[in-house]
């Protein structure tokens, strides 16, 4: 093999790669927070909503889960402006990520809520807690704790799939890498370096999620 690896231009542009990584983190965190809200509202709609609302949420979930993220992004970025919703690449990226992760989050959180036994809710009410408090502390928090591993691994998948938003030229990590590779032709080297950055981001997120779990859900279980 006569190929000479040339990492020089990649490390020369390392600052812009770090900036891209920061954009990826921001996009992902924004989509996670908003996706969590969509997940909670959607799960509530599926469990407690009327018939029409339930059907609407079901259609949303099935459509999103059975079509590629790439096509969803193209639809949001290219088709929505025709109905008057003009988004810049960053907004389109966040919307696409949140719409996508929301569909998965609804199903995960619904499973969590369904795992809460009726007796637990009744015990909360018997203790004199108001509706809001029962909903928040007796249903939602234990439900989120029960599905926390599934939810966080979905969030890590979200961060990884955010690399696809580079196709609509949002300036995330992959988009920065695309720019560097077209300027330097060190394609393999650039993508190898950012793959390692993604790996580090994924491991970092895992650590952060574990810390959040320790702080938020550290009370003992009944079992």
């Amino acid at each position, binding site marked *: *093999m006569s190929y000479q690896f040339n990492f020089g231009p990649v490390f020369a542009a390392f600052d812009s790669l770090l900036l891209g990584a920061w954009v990826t983190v921001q996009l992902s965190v924004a989509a996670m927070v908003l996706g969590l809200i969509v997940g909670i509202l959607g799960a509530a709609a599926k469990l407690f909503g009327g018939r029409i609302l339930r059907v609407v949420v079901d259609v949303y979930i099935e*459509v999103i889960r059975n*079509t*590629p993220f790439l096509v969803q992004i193209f*639809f949001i970025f290219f088709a929505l402006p025709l109905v008057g919703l003009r988004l810049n690449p960053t907004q389109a990226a966040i919307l696409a990520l949140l719409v996508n992760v929301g569909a998965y989050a609804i199903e995960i959180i619904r499973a969590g809520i369904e795992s809460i036994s009726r007796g637990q809710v009744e015990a909360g009410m018997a203790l004199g807690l108001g509706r809001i408090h029962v909903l928040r502390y007796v249903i939602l928090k234990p439900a989120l704790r029960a599905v926390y591993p599934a939810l966080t691994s979905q969030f890590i998948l979200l961060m*990884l799939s955010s690399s696809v938003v580079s196709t609509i030229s949002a300036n995330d990590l992959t988009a920065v890498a695309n720019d560097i590779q077209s300027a330097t032709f060190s394609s*393999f080297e650039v993508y190898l370096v950012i793959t390692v950055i993604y790996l580090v981001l*994924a491991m970092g997120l895992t650590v952060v999620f574990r810390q959040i779990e320790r702080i938020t859900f550290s009370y003992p279980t009944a079992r």
Partner: protein
Amino acid sequence: MIRSFGPNEVLFIVSAIQFTLLLSAVAFAGGMVGGFLVMLARVSQFKALRIAATAFIRVFQSTPLLMQLFLIFFGFDLLGWEVSALTAAAVALTLHASAFLGEIWRGCVESVPRGQSEAGWALGLSYFDRMGSIVLPQATKIAIPPTAGFLVQLIKGTSLASIIGFVELTRAGQIINNNTFQPFLVFGLVAALYFIICWPISLFARRMERRLAVANAR
């Protein structure tokens, strides 16, 4: 020049399904073979094999599929091998599927109680007999729903092959959209076609899962 979105354009997109299906089928078949080997290594009694399989799985689960495609695509280039976008995508998706199926199936194999394998060992059965006649038949039943679920992920994942230039369903849609600028119709149609492929598999996975839950509850 902007063309209109007529029957020819629809036909072009619809006929691109075959390439999405071809890539999915190759990657799934390759991933089943690779995943089986990864799973065997992952539950092996040799520590080195277990570590290697775990590392392989971790790397593929913690990096974007798009990067896996790029690295394989440009990696072939760097080795001086001229391969088509289809080959590069097929290799990348096969490795990707091997890692994910290996991890899914490891869980299924480990859910078969250890005593089963130990009983086989006590009866003097060989490794192949214990795996082939005792563990795998029981694990296969549990493996069907998550494997079908992953197949849906894989089919959706083939859309990324469009980024390295393989003309499948998504790329066909992009080409037509660039010519007609009818994103609503074009990407609506593309999404609908993916849905028609994936939804039945998702429904099948869910039905099998429910049936399994009922069987286990008994």
